[in-house]
């Protein structure tokens, strides 16, 4: 009766065609690359050297001195260089600085590579280094990384390519702090033109910043004049903001993106798919339970120890991280020799009886009520909270879970307005950060109210001890002390997963740099 039926049918067909068009387009891409892959390397050069990366968060800004967010770091670290960097073994190696020497324990002199240009053509000189670090240290900049360099007293330009850092006291962490992507060398001219560097990025790195379309994508293109010969191999890198895990999963499957980070569960799903390689690496992060150590009953170390004993870290590994995580102390195991073996530690044994005994000693034989606060933004934190709730129940601690969104979470963290807070820490690249920064009485990230003079003097000593072996011993002692006092419960350090299409070659993620793409090419 209705001709509309015909109309509807044709509409459906139209939609079908549209869908089909997209699908076949994707297939063509695949068959193209397969054919070319079958030929030898000459053909490979025909492949568009464009790497598409799914970014799980929108970059918060591009200023390396102002933005610690990982979604930003992964981008600006490709655009900027620092004085020095880590190699794959986490040894400090030259970057912009060709070489350096130490006239005394608290003085460093760096010699710069000559003829390196910023992407805008300006040459990099000692003045730029001085400017960059003064910018970091300037209160007006409100740089997150200022705390790393608080003992830099002055920076002197010795020659065009020579710059000297004068420290107030010896600092064993200084060089490794310089490898931080945020310790980037920036161009004064660009800062002055734009006010800050949140929207622009002009560095000396392997890629040049081209365009940032908010909540959509960031495009980087090859820096033809990169100071390391033969790098990078890619012509273009595009970071697409894709917050939804299922969308990233679907996009890597269909080849819409070449590279993405995934959760353990999703990584498991595609590990068998032929066209996708899942690379994993032990992260430098660990999850923890933070205690407000000035609030009853958590002010009693026995209570905190009891909670540690009541915590089954293996269950957390199995359920939250799909079995792929290792138990961790305050220094993540991927830090190698710096970290101590915690597995055998007394408080890491899931011993309910012992825990109950400790609670009784502390005067809480019947347990107590407590609220566990966690960030709704991260599923792993919420899941960890739920497991702890169950586990602690066994020693009579009845917990309620409070989920808050990220903005409030950060606030809660910094004001210690929660008694028990689930979180994740990056332990940095030097144990000083993991131990001093987070737990020294004056540590800027010590929000827990934790204070112990013995511990304080240990980490202070560690910072100024230059001998590696000695330093290691000091930190071992500090870590053991920290475990005993348990201002935080250190849980596990998860694996990280990066899924890449098999058209991407030479991609190797490292704990300290999950996304090193200078050597990467596509075939």
């Amino acid at each position, binding site marked *: 009766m*209705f001709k509309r039926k015909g109309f509807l049918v044709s509409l459906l067909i139209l939609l079908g065609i549209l869908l089909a068009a997209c699908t076949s387009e994707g297939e063509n891409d695949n068959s193209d690359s397969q054919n070319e892959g079958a030929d030898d390397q000459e053909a490979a050069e025909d492949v568009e050297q464009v790497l598409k990366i799914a970014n799980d968060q929108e970059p918060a800004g591009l200023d390396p001195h102002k933005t*610690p967010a990982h979604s930003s770091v992964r981008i600006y670290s490709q655009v900027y260089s620092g004085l020095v960097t880590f190699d794959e073994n986490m040894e400090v190696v030259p970057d912009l600085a060709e070489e350096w020497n130490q006239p005394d324990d608290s003085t460093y002199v760096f010699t710069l590579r000559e003829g390196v240009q910023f992407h805008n053509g300006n040459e990099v000189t000692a003045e730029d280094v001085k400017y960059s670090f003064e910018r970091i240290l300037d209160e007006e900049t409100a740089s997150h990384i200022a*705390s790393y360099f608080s003992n830099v007293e002055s920076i002197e330009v010795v020659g065009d390519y020579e710059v000297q850092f004068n420290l107030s006291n010896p600092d064993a962490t200084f060089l490794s702090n310089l490898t931080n992507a945020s310790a980037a060398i920036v161009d004064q001219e660009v800062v002055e033109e734009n006010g800050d560097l949140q929207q622009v990025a002009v560095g000396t790195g392997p890629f040049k910043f081209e365009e940032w379309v*908010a*909540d959509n994508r960031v495009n980087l293109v090859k820096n033809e004049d990169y100071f390391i010969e033969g790098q990078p191999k890619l012509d273009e890198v595009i970071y697409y903001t894709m*917050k939804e895990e299922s*969308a990233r999963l679907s996009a890597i499957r269909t080849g819409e993106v070449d590279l993405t980070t995934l959760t353990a569960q999703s990584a498991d799903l595609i590990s068998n798919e032929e066209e996708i390689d899942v690379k994993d690496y032990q992260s430098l992060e660990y999850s923890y339970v933070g205690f407000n150590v000035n609030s009853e009953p958590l002010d009693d170390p026995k209570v905190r120890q009891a909670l540690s004993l009541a915590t089954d870290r293996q269950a957390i590994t199995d359920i939250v991280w799909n079995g792929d995580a290792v138990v961790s102390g305050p220094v993540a195991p991927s830090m190698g020799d710096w970290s101590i073996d915690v597995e055998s530690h007394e408080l890491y044994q899931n011993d309910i009886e012992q825990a109950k005994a400790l609670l009784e000693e502390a005067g809480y034989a019947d347990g107590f009520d407590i609220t566990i606060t966690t960030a709704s933004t991260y599923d792993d934190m919420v899941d960890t909270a739920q497991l702890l709730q169950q586990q602690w129940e066994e020693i009579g601690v009845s917990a309620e879970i409070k989920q808050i*969104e990220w*903005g409030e979470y950060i606030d809660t963290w910094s004001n210690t307005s929660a008694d028990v807070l689930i979180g994740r820490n990056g332990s940095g690249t030097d144990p000083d950060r993991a131990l001093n920064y987070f737990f020294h009485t004056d540590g800027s990230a010590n929000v827990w109210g934790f204070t112990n003079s013995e511990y304080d003097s240990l980490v202070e000593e560690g910072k100024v001890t230059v001998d590696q072996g000695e330093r290691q011993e000091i930190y071992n002692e500090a870590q053991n002390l920290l475990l005993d006092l348990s201002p935080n419960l250190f849980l596990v350090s998860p694996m990280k997963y990066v899924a890449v299409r098999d058209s991407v070659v030479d991609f190797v993620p490292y704990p300290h740099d999950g996304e090193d793409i200078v050597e990467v090419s596509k075939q």
Partner: protein
Amino acid sequence: MYAYIIRRLLMLVPVLFGVSVVIFFTLRIIPGDVAQTILGTDATKESLAQLRKDFGLDRPVIEQYITWMSGVLMGDFGESMTTGREVLPDILNRFKITFELTILSAILSWIIAIPLGVIAGIKRNTKTDFTVRIVSLLGVSIPNFALATVLILILALTFSYSPPVGYVGFFEDPIRNLQIMLLPSIVLGTAMAGAVMRMTRSSILEILRQDFIRTIRAKGAKERLVIFNHALRNAMIPILTIIGMQIGVLLGGTVIIEQIFSLPGLGQLVLTSINQRDFTVIQGAILFIAFVFVLVNLLVDILYSYLDPRITYK
């Protein structure tokens, strides 16, 4: 008519003023601090204080409001606290996408829902009617994030299809744009279609009982003429009401779908800014959404008078 529109526009003023006050002062009560969110765990007390000072957050709240409002009145919505970008151009850019998504899903739902609603109404209490009603109700009953995720998964697994990544504007590349927008529009359209279909059906039922329909049949008119020229046109008035409401809701309510499908729309902007406590962006965006919402309502009212000669505004 013009006098009416002007009066209605004037009535916007107190509403928007209310919205601005509510959002501005609510934001100042919400726990959370933009400086802390930006600087994260590495921040020092000094850098936090500096940043707060930069944003003017150290001044009295009333003063902050007056500064902001006088800027807004001059068309200056300020700069984002996190990205430093101008707020208004950002909002407008994002709005384009949300608007396109809204319109596409609305159109998609109309072409499906209105004919089905008419058919169900004409064939009341037949099997066709029941089928259409049940399907449409199911459409309304599924939480859209679940529908979206399931769709994404099924399409990826069975047709190895996923929407192209990286939004492009309609005028840059219409085909790619539509490919990107298709799935999210279908998901949003599903719920909308259900509601529109139900309203169409019940309005058609009501109109078909009216005397004038008998008059038109008595003239010897074909059933098609009766349905489309008379019944449907009369039914359009209540349908329009529900469409207007939905468009209004969608303009601010596509947050979840935008997030799942990685569309850089207004909803995402607000959500991100709420998470980051980027006050200037939240304030600006909410005010803008409210403005558009009230405008859509006004537009619907004006459309009424276009569709129904009995309604005149003075």
